[in-house]
């Protein structure tokens, strides 16, 4: 058992030294395979304002989320990163008194148009949360939950979808012999990958990740980051992170948010990760990146 673990750690260390994940290398440079330049915008956010009652929490945010890339959102605590992320799949609608102005386009369609059902939006924009939150069900039932309730498929087709989703989340080999055991028997990192598999089973257009590794140890974090780079070849990913190295390691583009004197979050700048970390246009970005505040 102990031997096994040490082997695993060595493997992890070996991977740490692969160029794609070494700190200081930017995903947009390293992951050449990913179409870093000139892809169409999957989502467009136009002049987005978000209110809790009369309090404006997000102020006039506009940015584009390119297809099959990873956009990282960084910024100090309380700058509305998570709130912004949750406006992208209308999860923030659930907060009493929540109100949105402006547009969020997904494939050119405004998800806040009056005739759009928020529930339908969420089937296209999946989400992974800060802490792993598997259902108190078996591993299989966790992944099958969404497809089952939407009557997408059953029987053999469902089995295949579950396997495919678990493979895509790099979890299949670890759980294929215990699919019908409780999801709580898994480690934290495995649970988080299970939650990713659960989101992927809905075959979403976009995957939102709200600090998906902040509750995990470094090795599990690394696995999630590797996984994200792999998923970016097929999915559009938006990740909120407190960890600037993480943004540097995985994101093609990075958006820097701040909070203004009215306690509202706003976008300072959004550019390729390399630009944000080496030659930011805004002085505030540079100050944050170099650790002078935040």
């Amino acid at each position, binding site marked *: 058992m102990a031997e096994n673990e040490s082997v695993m750690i060595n493997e992890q260390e070996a991977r740490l030294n692969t160029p794609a994940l070494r700190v200081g290398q930017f995903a947009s440079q390293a992951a050449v395979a990913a179409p870093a330049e000139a892809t169409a915008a999957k989502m467009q956010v136009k002049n987005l304002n978000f209110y809790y009652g009369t309090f404006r929490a997000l102020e006039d945010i506009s940015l584009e989320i390119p297809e099959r890339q990873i956009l990282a959102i960084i910024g100090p605590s309380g700058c509305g990163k998570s709130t912004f992320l949750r406006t992208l799949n209308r999860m923030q609608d659930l907060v009493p008194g929540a109100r949105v102005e402006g547009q969020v386009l997904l494939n050119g369609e405004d998800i806040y148009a009056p005739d759009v059902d928020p*529930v339908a*939006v969420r*089937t296209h924009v999946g989400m992974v949360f800060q802490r792993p*939150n*598997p259902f*108190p069900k078996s591993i299989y039932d966790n992944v099958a939950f*969404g497809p089952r*309730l939407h009557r997408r498929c059953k029987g053999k087709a469902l089995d295949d979808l579950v396997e495919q989703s678990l493979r895509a989340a790099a979890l299949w080999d670890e759980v294929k012999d215990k699919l019908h055991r409780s999801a709580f028997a898994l480690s934290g990192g495995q649970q988080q990958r299970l939650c990713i598999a659960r989101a992927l089973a*809905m075959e979403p257009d976009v995957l939102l990740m709200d600090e998906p590794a902040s509750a995990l140890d470094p090795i599990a974090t690394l696995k999630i980051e590797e996984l994200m780079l792999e998923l970016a070849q097929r999915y559009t990913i938006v990740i909120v992170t407190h960890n600037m190295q993480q943004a540097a390691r995985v994101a093609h583009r990075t958006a820097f948010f701040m909070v203004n004197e009215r306690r509202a979050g706003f976008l300072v700048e959004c550019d390729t990760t390399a630009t944000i970390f080496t030659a930011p246009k805004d002085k505030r970005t540079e100050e944050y990146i170099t650790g002078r505040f935040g």
Partner: protein
Amino acid sequence: MSVTGFQSGSRRSAFATAALDRRRLVDRVMQALLVLAIAIAIVPLIAVLGYVLAKGIPGLRITLFTKLPRPVDLGGGGMANSMIGSLIMVGLASVLGVLIGVGGGIYLAEYGHGRLAAAIRFFADVLSGIPSITVGLFVYVLLVVPLHSFSALAGAVALAILMLPLVMRTTEEMMRLVPETLREASLALGVPRWRTIVSVVLPAALEGIITGTLLAIARVAGETAPLLFTAFGNEFWQRSLLKPIDAVPLRVFKYAIGPYDVWHKLAQAGALVLILFVLVLGVAARWIAGRRRLSER
């Protein structure tokens, strides 16, 4: 490094001063008082159990469960009709109480944010404190008078009203214990609110709800007062839900205050049956609750 500071003014060690001795004494006295309190609290419980067991076991014959009541000079018979009557009324009350109680609890937990919910919560708490005989009188006016007859239905409704606040508040509490992150996980998969409640929240809270419901059933199964003006009692079999029906607590009540030794014996046996029934439900509730804790590990 010197330790003289600790010992100044006393020849004894710093770890055994007079002040510490006094604290230790106070500690012992307090502990003794608490043990005394728990002993006093538990004495009546054990005394009742022991008394009912001792007095009830001799009367516990198979005829108690199979025979109708008979005149005293024929041995008094059994209370089969009372047991069936109790089962019918407790069963019907459970169906009513669980359907409405769980439904109300779900509303309070998932949708209850406004003033209406606060009012419902308040009245549920008041309702759980109302004397059970008042509920009996209420149902008398509500059902017995308009239907011109005491009935199993009226008895069941009275018991259901007593169950309602218990089931409702337990359901609410248990649903609130389900972490918000689970609801979010389901909603983020594009699952509608109602489906999330049915498929995620309710199953996660189910064991707690069942435990609470069993305790509520146990609580009303022994109720006598609300049945006095509703079920009324009956010496014979009763198939209709709209006619007076017997119940074990009613029969025990009647026999216990009657003048015959035979009756007293039957009453004690009936009381034992009631206690055993409640005990079984209580143990079942504990078992389910214990299983839940295990599965969370």
